[in-house]
């Protein structure tokens, strides 16, 4: 009897934390989303969301950009993690990859403004080569580039961990049994590291859906995502209901992504 109360007491801080900082905010957002700007209880926010072409377009935009960012980071991160696994001073390289995450996001964004601007490093170089200045800031390219740069560590780490856990013997066995390099990659390495890839995709795709500071600083608001709309509804329109509605849609979208990329344990253990 005494033991069980003791155990319960240990749970209290965690339960409190989850209730106060996870469940309560979600409930509040859902609750807020049912009120229109005049403070009446209504479903009209959801009706507006799904009926207006603007929000639907914005959703498609957000998902599209998040997809591009995720795809690009994955493309860079998988080979990087793979090479890292075989690299000599693994810990040092890993540290170098993690290091940029210690720097504030805003600072990194401002640094890129300096690099991409008309008088910035890249354009100075291009001018020197006689290729003339180009507009980099406020383009899709720069937005996706900077967002990918920021997200890359979050993709590399889980993939790296996945590859580290990979049993080298299995790869060797597949080679011994006559598999080509490509075959052992697609049949052995990739499936066994898939959980790392999925974790990485989750860690990148979900935050990418609602990047709003980068859309303004680097994208010059020529790239609009749902995050921009939420910011506007909370700060300028003071239409918290509509802002919350978009927030709820984002949460639902994230749950869907989690479900799609999550591990689905099958009964019996054997995968089909």
């Amino acid at each position, binding site marked *: 009897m005494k033991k069980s109360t003791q155990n319960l007491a240990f749970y209290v801080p965690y339960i409190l934390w989850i209730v106060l900082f996870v469940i309560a905010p979600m409930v509040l957002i859902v609750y807020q989303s049912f009120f229109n700007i005049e403070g009446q209880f209504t479903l009209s926010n959801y009706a507006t969301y799904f009926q207006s072409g603007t929000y639907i377009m914005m959703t498609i935009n957000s998902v599209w950009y998040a997809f591009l960012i995720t795809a690009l980071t994955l493309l860079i991160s998988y080979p990087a993690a793979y090479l890292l696994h075989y690299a000599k001073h693994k810990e040092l390289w890993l540290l170098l990859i993690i290091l940029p995450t210690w720097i504030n996001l805003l600072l990194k964004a401002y640094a890129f403004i300096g690099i991409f601007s008309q008088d910035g490093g890249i354009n100075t170089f291009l001018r020197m080569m006689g290729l003339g200045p180009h507009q980099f800031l406020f383009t899709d390219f720069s937005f996706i580039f900077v967002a990918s740069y920021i997200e890359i560590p979050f993709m590399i780490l889980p993939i790296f961990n996945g590859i580290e856990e990979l049993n080298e013997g299995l790869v060797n066995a597949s080679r011994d049994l006559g598999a080509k390099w490509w075959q052992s990659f697609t049949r052995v390495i990739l499936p066994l590291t898939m959980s790392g890839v999925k974790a990485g995709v989750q860690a990148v795709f979900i935050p990418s859906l609602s990047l709003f500071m980068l859309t*303004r600083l680097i994208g*010059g608001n020529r790239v609009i995502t749902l995050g921009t709309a939420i910011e506007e509804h909370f700060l300028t329109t003071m239409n918290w209901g509509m802002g919350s509605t978009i927030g709820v849609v984002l949460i639902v979208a994230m749950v869907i992504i989690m479900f799609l990329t999550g591990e689905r344990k099958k009964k019996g253990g054997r995968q089909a």
Partner: protein
Amino acid sequence: MKRLISMAAVILAAVIGLAVWSNSLQKAQGATGDNTLNLANWGDYIDPALVKKFEKESGYHVNLETFDSNEAMYTKIQQGGTSYDLTVPSEYMVEKMARAKMLVPLDKSKLHGLNNYGSLYMNRSFDPGNKYSLPYFWGTLGIIYNDKYVSADEVQHWNDLWSPKFKDNIMLIDSARDIMGFSLRSMGKSMNTTDPNTLALAKAKLDQMSPNVKAVVADEIKMYMAADESELAVDWSGEAADMMANNSHLHYIVPSEGSNLWFDNLVIPKTAKHYKAIYAFLNFITDPKNAAQNAEYVGYSTPNTAALKLLPKSVRNDKQFYPDATVIKRSEVYKDLDPKTVGLYNDLYLEFKMYRK
């Protein structure tokens, strides 16, 4: 279990200890005394030397707190927990706060030198008879151009911004009211239009301008313009002054057909307590000498015409920041629109931002 309880007790004791300590610190600073003035202002919007001078002359201690948006300040005061004696909302926010009964009327008998303020800047629609507010600084919305790429006569009117020669070369300030506003103005309509059809037309007109728009940004616009990143920008006069201080090629124009006229105003929120200090400060800042010093530091246009006379001739005659009275008369002050219309402005504005070039 015992350990857990003792841990909790330690944390609780630490919290209480800190609370007592911070309270005593505040007392030491005189924050709870009667000789203070709690001033909420925008960042870097008063000459620090002037604050020192006021403290020395009057003996009141000034607690300066800053905010960065009218809405944030409004929410803070509305939700309580602040004890501001004076704050500096923009004109539409004065109207909104007055309507929400968050302001205390000014006692004119305690104010001296009200006739220092120019008649153009008093008794405006947002606060008839200046019941609640005294103008602090004012300004306009206009076009900033870089004379390396653009000549003055190319950008005399709002409609010039639609010219194809400025393709991908205009930066806009990220503000729904202002961007929709100049589109309305270019059509000869009021910047306070509430008719949904007219607003839709203004937005459609903005869409046509989209190829010219390089970016829609906020504060960064100052940095970009100073760094020659764009040839043109639409921004407020105060921001323009900041940019021009960093790049001598930049100039500011208020289109002659009129623009927005904005005012930041000193008001007494209902949270005020130190009335003696408040009126001492209001009289202090109304004094032409002090107002002139403040205007020189902040670089915005002062509504204090007596102070203006003390400023150097180059400032006084600067048409960029003190446009002709006819232009001022043609310009409009924003009204506090009903929430539905504000929502409409913002939705249309979002759609404009989404419009692909």
